[in-house]
Each structure stands twice: as structure tokens, then as C-alpha cells.
């Protein structure tokens, strides 16, 4: 028997204090019933004696302290999961909003999930070909990895993420895949861009969408990515699917978290974000991965816009410490018309080393990758020097490196949003570019690979 309380003592949106409660537990889900019959959801943040501090997911508008009823449901926030979720659209709280019927739940799952036992993880090592050279060749994505895209306002991260979702495949494999897409506080237009792209390619039937748009309640955003990940875990580890999760935009999520933290009057950490932002983000990101003895996997691509393009802002900074690398987009390259404008030097995939090489991509992959990075880095330095002192100040070698850097951006990086390059094509383009440099500078590549792969004049 669920008790109803009419003992709301205080509301300071998004928090509410309820008095004289009994048997209420931490993290429990609750419901408010307004006098007009409208039902809103809330969650217990703290209980002390018979007083509960509760967080509202929606607006507090219209709540009357005396007349509004509160019920606590005896369980934390849950999501009804089933295979029928594929092809459906839900709101940020997991309710269908596509006009279709409710989901007949096979199971109700706690959206917070449980930490994965490190001893049960399987190390991600299967190469995913995204068809994007800067990712496949230099920042290789593997199945079960979490690789965020660090973007800025006005940069084409949506186009890149959609391209990855469209082209990603594991070579020589035809297992069932699924996409879980969580729109977190983004605009209707951006959300539609993704959904239209899924529709165009037919992926929509294998996609689950959770949509919390910019005009939806901000606090609901705290639940949205967890809903998405709960669905992803179900599809990956119980239905053996290869799931790609796209979360956009994490910056909006962190801001919602900050809003709640400020309302709770917690001691703020950097830039007003709560001190537990790292732990909070980690409990989401770490849900990506593979498990031993399970076929399915969760590969995660969170997208975040860096305020003022600042990589040291707490959101990208803490994300970078948790995720297994990052793809960084550059405004400078974007202005130059490079598509996709991936800034390869600060980009990184931590799991690439186990996903490339003989039997996965090609034997020369690791060496050429390091060589391209080092050469591009030196070429960029040379170009910088050239702008200050003129070309005459460069040594002969440095002139070659400067030329290499220029060509690298034009040919290797700028492939457009529709080109789907195989890994062989990507590697061969790399060799074509290395031809610009003197052979003695190719120290990172084994001599036998240079003999075998360096194209002849």
C-alpha cells in the first residue's frame, strides 16, 4: 500500500522538502499529483528522520503546498525495456512520444545500473572501420570503446557523428547492430538532423531515441543519458547486439547537474560544477565496454561542446580523464574548409594499439601512424616558423615537412562527409604523403615496411 502525503513544507525549484514521511529511502522515485490531476515525477536526494529532500524533474509551476499529494513508489527510477524499443522515440524520462503504444516491458531496470566488475570486462580489441581516415588511421576506434567528440559551438560535430554512425562496421562481421541516440538538451533541428540521417539510411528501425530537447525540463536531463544506457545495456548484454550509443550534448547534462547541486547549496568545485562531477560522469561513461562471454558490446560516442573552445574547462577535462581518448574538432581547420575538421595532434585513441596491426588492419599501421603524427607535428612547427621568419629561414628538411603538413590536411584529413574510405585506402594515402619526406626521416617505420609499401616514383 503506497502512502500519500500532503505535507510539502517547502519548494525551491528544483528541490522540495516533504515532512512527516515514513519508510522513504535514498534515491527512491516519487510522484506528485497536482489538484488538477496532473502527475509529475521526483526523486529522493536525502532523508533525515521524517523529512525528505526531493528533486523535481519538471517545473514546480502550479504546485500548491497544501493541496498537492506526494507518493513514494518504493523503487529507484526504472526503465521498461524490451526489444520492441528499437525504432521508437521516447522522452527524457523514458515515456514513448512517437504516438505508438507503451512498451510491453520484459523487465524493469534501475536506470543507475551497477558498476561492472573489472574482472568481468573483456578488453576492447576489435577494429571498427568508420571510413574516416583521421579516426581509422590515426585514432582507431575499437568495439566497446568510449571515444568522445570535443567540439565547439558552430562546429560540425553532428555531421561527423552521423557519418560514423552511418559507416561504422567491423570488418568481416555481420552481427546485429543497434544505435541508441540520446538528445540531451539539444535543439529540435539538431535532433532532427540525426533522426533524418538514420531514416535516410534505414538505420532508424534499429535505433532507440531518447529525446530531451532544449525546451524540455532541464533537470530531466540528468536521467536521459542513464535511460539511454540502460536500454543499451539491455540490447548489448541480454540481446547480443553491437550497440553504438551517441550522447549529445554532455555540456547540457553537466549544467543540469550544476543546477541541482547549486539548489542543494553544495560546496562548488571548479566553475561552480559539483565536486562529484568526475564520479558522476564516470558512472555513465564506464557503462560502455564488453563483457567476457557476452557477444554484444557498447561503443559510446559522447559529444560535448567546449565552452570557448577551452579544453581545460571542467567538462571536457574530466571527460578526457575518463574516456579512452578524444576526437577534437578545430575551428581553424573548419575555417580553412577542411571537412571533417579533426585536429589530429591533440586527438587520441587510447585503445588503438590493441586494435591495429597484423590480422586486424595491416602490419605497417602502427609505424605509419606514429610517423604521420610526428611528421605533421614537425611540419606544423615549421609552418609556424615560416609565417614569422619567411620560407628562407627554414632548412631544406623543414621545407619538406611544411609541405607535408599542408598536403596532409588537404588530402588525408579533408575527405568530406560522404567519402567512406577503407582502411587500405587510408593507409595507402598515408604512404603517398610520406613520399614527400626524405627516407632517412622515416625513423618510426621499420625499414622492411618502407621497402614494401613506400610507393615508387
Amino acid at each position, binding site marked *: 500500500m503506497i502512502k500519500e502525503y500532503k505535507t510539502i513544507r517547502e519548494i525551491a525549484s528544483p528541490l522540495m522538502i516533504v515532512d512527516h514521511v515514513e519508510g522513504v*529511502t535514498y534515491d527512491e522515485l516519487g510522484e506528485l499529483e497536482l489538484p488538477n490531476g496532473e502527475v509529475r515525477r521526483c526523486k529522493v536526494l536525502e532523508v533525515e528522520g521524517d523529512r525528505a529532500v526531493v528533486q523535481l524533474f519538471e517545473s514546480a509551476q502550479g504546485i500548491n503546498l497544501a493541496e498537492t499529494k506526494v507518493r513514494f513508489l518504493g523503487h529507484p527510477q526504472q526503465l521498461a525495456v524490451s526489444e520492441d524499443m528499437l525504432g521508437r522515440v521516447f522522452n527524457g524520462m523514458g515515456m514513448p512520444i512517437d504516438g505508438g503504444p507503451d512498451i510491453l516491458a520484459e523487465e524493469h531496470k534501475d536506470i*543507475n545500473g551497477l558498476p561492472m566488475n573489472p574482472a568481468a570486462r573483456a578488453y576492447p580489441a576489435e577494429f571498427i572501420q568508420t571510413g574516416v581516415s583521421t579516426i581509422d588511421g590515426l585514432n582507431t576506434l575499437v568495439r566497446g570503446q568510449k571515444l568522445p567528440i570535443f567540439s565547439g559551438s558552430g562546429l560540425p560535430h553532428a555531421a561527423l557523428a552521423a557519418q560514423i554512425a552511418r559507416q561504422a562496421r567491423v570488418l568481416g562481421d555481420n552481427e546485429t547492430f543497434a544505435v541508441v541516440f540520446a538528445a540531451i538538451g539539444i535543439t529540435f533541428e539538431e535532433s532532427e538532423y540525426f533522426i533524418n540521417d538514420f531514416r535516410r539510411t534505414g538505420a532508424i528501425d534499429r535505433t532507440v531515441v531518447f529525446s530531451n530537447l532544449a525546451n524540455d525540463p532541464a533537470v530531466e536531463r540528468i536521467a536521459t543519458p542513464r535511460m539511454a544506457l540502460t536500454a543499451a545495456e539491455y540490447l548489448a548484454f541480454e540481446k547480443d547486439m553491437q550497440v553504438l550509443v551517441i550522447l549529445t550534448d554532455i555540456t547540457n547534462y553537466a549544467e543540469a547537474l550544476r543546477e541541482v547541486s547549486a539548489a542543494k547549496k*553544495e560546496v562548488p568545485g571548479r566553475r561552480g560544477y559539483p*565536486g562529484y562531477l568526475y564520479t558522476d560522469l564516470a558512472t555513465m561513461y564506464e557503462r560502455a565496454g564488453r563483457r567476457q562471454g557476452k557477444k554484444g558490446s557498447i561503443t559510446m560516442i559522447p559529444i560535448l561542446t567546449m565552452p570557448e573552445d577551452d579544453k581545460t574547462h571542467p567538462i571536457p577535462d574530466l571527460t578526457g580523464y575518463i574516456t579512452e581518448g578524444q576526437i577534437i574538432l578545430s575551428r581553424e581547420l573548419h575555417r580553412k574548409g577542411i571537412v571533417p575538421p579533426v585536429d589530429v595532434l591533440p586527438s587520441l585513441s587510447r585503445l588503438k594499439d590493441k586494435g591495429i596491426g597484423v590480422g586486424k588492419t595491416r602490419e605497417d599501421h*602502427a609505424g605509419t601512424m606514429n610517423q604521420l603524427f610526428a611528421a605533421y607535428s614537425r611540419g606544423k612547427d615549421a609552418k609556424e616558423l615560416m609565417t614569422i621568419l619567411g620560407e628562407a629561414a627554414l632548412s631544406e628538411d623543414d621545407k619538406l615537412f611544411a609541405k607535408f603538413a599542408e598536403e596532409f590536411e588537404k588530402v588525408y584529413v579533408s575527405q568530406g562527409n560522404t567519402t567512406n574510405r577503407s582502411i587500405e585506402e587510408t593507409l595507402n594515402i598515408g604512404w603517398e604523403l610520406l613520399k614527400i619526406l626524405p627516407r632517412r626521416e622515416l625513423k618510426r617505420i621499420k625499414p622492411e615496411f618502407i621497402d614494401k609499401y613506400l610507393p615508387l616514383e
Partner: protein
Amino acid sequence: MSGKITKVSGPLVVAEGLADANVSDVVRVGASHLIGEILNMTGDKASIQVYEETSGLGPGADVVTTGLPMSVELGPGMLDNIYDGIQRPLPEMRALTGDSITRGTDVPALNREKKWDFVPVAAVGDKLTAGDVLGTVQETSAILHRIMVPPKMAGTLKSIQAGSFTVTDIVAVLTDEKGVDHELSMMQRWPVRIARPYQHKYVPARPMNSGQRIIDTLFPIAKGGTAAVPGPFGSGKTVVQHQLAKWSDVDIVIYIGCGERGNEMTDVLMEFPELKDPRNGEPLMKRTVLIANTSDMPVAAREASIYTGITIAEYFRDMGYDVAVLADSTSRWAEALREMSGRLEEMPGEEGYPAYLASRLAQFYERAGVVECLGSDERQGSVTAIGAVSPPGGDISEPVSQATMRIVKVFWALDSSLAYARHFPAINWLTSYSLYIDTLQPWYTEQFGETYMQNRERAMHILQEEAELQEIVRLVGQDALSPEDRLTMETAKMIREDFLQQNAFVDEDAYSSYLKQFRLLNMVLKYDVLCREALAKGADMNALFAIDVREKIGRAKMADPNAFTEAYDAIEKQMKAEIDEVIAGGEEA
């Protein structure tokens, strides 16, 4: 003695009716017996940090104290194992509860069923004091586990048995001076927040060989020393830590994954059993204890994990072993401290961290050191503590980095611009330091002669000079430099690329012996000396830089670890010949 919960706020629980409990006692909370620890007491009210997720807990639930402080179990069975932050074995938890970590799981740290072959060393009638070895157990193929008389105990050995026993079976009985018998098993308990006792502490004087050239040659750490590895994300902190865990010439490695990625622990779990210790050929996992409290696991247990790790390290040290503790990352530990402090509504210090952050950090690092262990055989052991620091935005002006720098003696500063250029390990040679250079110098000189440290100084000098010359080049271009300065820059480039850069993923290069390091640096410096002489004789600078042997020097680090001397001799010979040729060519023209 049981109390009732009055408040739940995340990992913090307040309970009343616990007048009998002590501060720091371990308690069991609620119906699912979550594990917690008492932080503060006011009257009969206790503030408890709970090591597991508290969702579903509410006022009125029972809290029971165990009456014991947070302790670890010490005995055979820890090596080759992986624990969470409060020493619960993760493989056994997985067998019990599946792929996820569910709450209230109670698994003893040491397997109670497994039998170990105990070989007595002491004999009946022996007068034994704390730390004396009772007997031994071959725990893994690599490590002989010495079963010792626990601290604070002494007496005459009344009985001792050889044979196959579990960790809780009685293997010996000790009669103390009052005539009381103490039954001893192979297992000890020790509270994690208290350092284990020893006889004396010494100043460290032997280096820890890591096989990493920039560490061993430029910024060495002593066995029993302390070091910090700060760096922004993506600069290779974890790879440096993994390299140290793999190749350090210590007997035991304790690797603490504290609030870091789950896949990194999986990587260690998969890779270490395959890798062989270069010194004895045994799989590295046989000497390793892993503590994994990944970032998605409960935050309070993260706080406990580094104490769990260092206590296990001290226990192996007490056997007379050299132990390395690698903590990745101490910043996440500090954040756990901050979170609990905030929930306790303590007055914050800098950036929300509690005022006791620096003293807690100092207490942790101070548990490192070279000691004469308890026991009458004067054996020595050491604990080397190396902590990664993850400063926000890579800016080391923040409290955790600053508090760490005040304590540690070695500082390997990782640099993101080096990482972008794929210069790994991305340890910046200008900002890093080692305060052990002076104490370790005699050792290096004794082993390899005076040249080793002279070469180090010369290399550091060249790198320093390069930094200054680069400023000039940036302003006026390199044509303005004299040939001698150009040579300095060229040599510095060789030191950076051909010596300091080391690829952790290539077998020939991942580990470099002292001798290989010495010969390699010596070769580069010899090039410098010969070219300098040649320049004085009027040789053409560009011709000197373009001699064929340069490509071979660039690849010299990849030489076979067992046969590099011949190869290096040949390169040096060729180098001499080619430089002489350039000089001769210049004279002819």
C-alpha cells in the same frame, strides 16, 4: 550493538544508538549489510561513510558495528589476485554475483579453502620476536611468502607443523613470557590506516631500475623513494605507470587503480600473465597484486583503496622484499576525500578540498621507505611509492599537485605538447627533477664508472642549451647560429629522438638495461664530440649532419637487448670513419 539510521545523503549515513562503537569501526548498514566505516561521533550519533551504493536505504534501518577498524587480511593468496578498494576479491565476487558488482557481497579476502604447503623455518624452543620468520610458503612460482610472527608478539615456540594448511589453520603455537599460549595461523590482520611497524628507517641509496631511459638515466628514483607523475589527460600517465609496474626491478608490485578506467585494469589483467619478468623469466602477474576501484565503483571505497594497497605493500616489505606501490590516480582519491568532506559539511580549504588534504597525502607517501624489518635477522625491505596526479586542465597550481610536490622527491612532469608530437614517454626534461641524484651517484659510479653520471650531466646541459637556442631561432631563424650552436641543437635532437623516446609497445625497446642506456647515450655524445672536433678542423656542417650512420643511430635503440654491444661497436666505428671522411673531403676542397 545495533543502532538506527536517521539520515541518508549519498554515501554518508548518520545513525544513532551507537554509543558502544568506536571511531573508525567498520559497521554493517541496513538489511543488505552494506559495509561502512565510522568517521565521526557526536554523543551516540555516528557519521558513517558507506563503501557501497546507498540507494534504497532509509531512516530506521539497522546499523551494526563489528567493533573492529578497517583492516586487511594478510597472508598467502594475495599475489596474482585482483581486489576492490576494501580488499574483496573481484574474481570470486564475479563467480558469486555475475558481471556486475552487487551490494552487500561478503567474500573473505583470502580464500579459506585453498591449502598452502607450509615449510617451518623456526624450531620448537626457539625464542622468537615479532617479525621473525616462522616458516615459508611458495605462494607463486616467483615469490616465497614468509610467514612471520605478527607485530607486538614474542615468546617461545611451543609447537610448529609442516604440511598443507588453509590460511586459518593453526600452524604454530607461541608461549609468551607470561606463559600464555598464542595460536598462530598463516593469516594476519592489520588496520589499513596505521603504518606497520619496523626497526629502523634508512635513507634510500640504491636506484630502482625501471628500464625507462629518461627515468633511469636522467631522473632516477631510489628504492624506498617517492615519486609523482603529474600530467593532463592523454599525456601517457597510465602508460608510464604500466611500464614501471612491468619492468621495475622490485620483488613485488602493488598496482592501485584508484578511480580510473575499468578497461585499464582489464588490460593489466590480460597482459601481465603473458609478460615475463626480464630478470627471472616468471610471468609478471606472479609478483603483482591489483587493487581496482574503478571510477564507476563507489566513491568511499576509492578513499580506502590506497590504504589497502600500501598496507599490503608494507606486509611484503616486512618479509624483506622490495615493493613498488603504483597509485593511479591520487587525484581521484583526493576527490573522494573532498566528496565525503562536503557531505560531512566540513569547512572547505582550497577548491573545496578538506583542510587535511596535505597531511593525509603526506601520511601516505611517508609510509614509503627503506627499513630494517622487525625480527632478529636484520633483513631489509623497501616500499617505493609512485603516485599519478591528474591535475584539472594539466595545471599543476591546483592543491593536489602542490601538496604532492611538497612531499615527493622525484617529479616526472608529463607534457601534452610532447604527447601531441608522439614523443613518449612524454616526460618533460626541463621541468622534471630527481632529488636522489646525489645519493645515488656513488652507486652509478661504482657500477659503471664515472662516465655514467658525467654523460647525464652533459646530456642535461645540451638539452638546457637547446631550449635557450630555440628562443633565438624563433626570433631570427637558425641561420644566425654558429656551426657549434647548430651542432648543439642537432645533438639535442638526437638525445630527444634517439635516446629519450622509447616505445612501450615494441618488444626490443620497452625495456632498456642500464648498460644499453649507457652505451646509447655515450654513442650520441661521442657523435657530438667528434663533430665538434671536425668543425674545429673546418669540416662542412651540413655534410656532418647528413652522414649515413645517422639513420643507424636513429634505429640503435631497437637493437636486440642481448646483442646490442657488437652492433653499437660497429656503429661507432662507422661513425668515426664517416666523420673522418668528411674532414678529409673538406681539406681536399
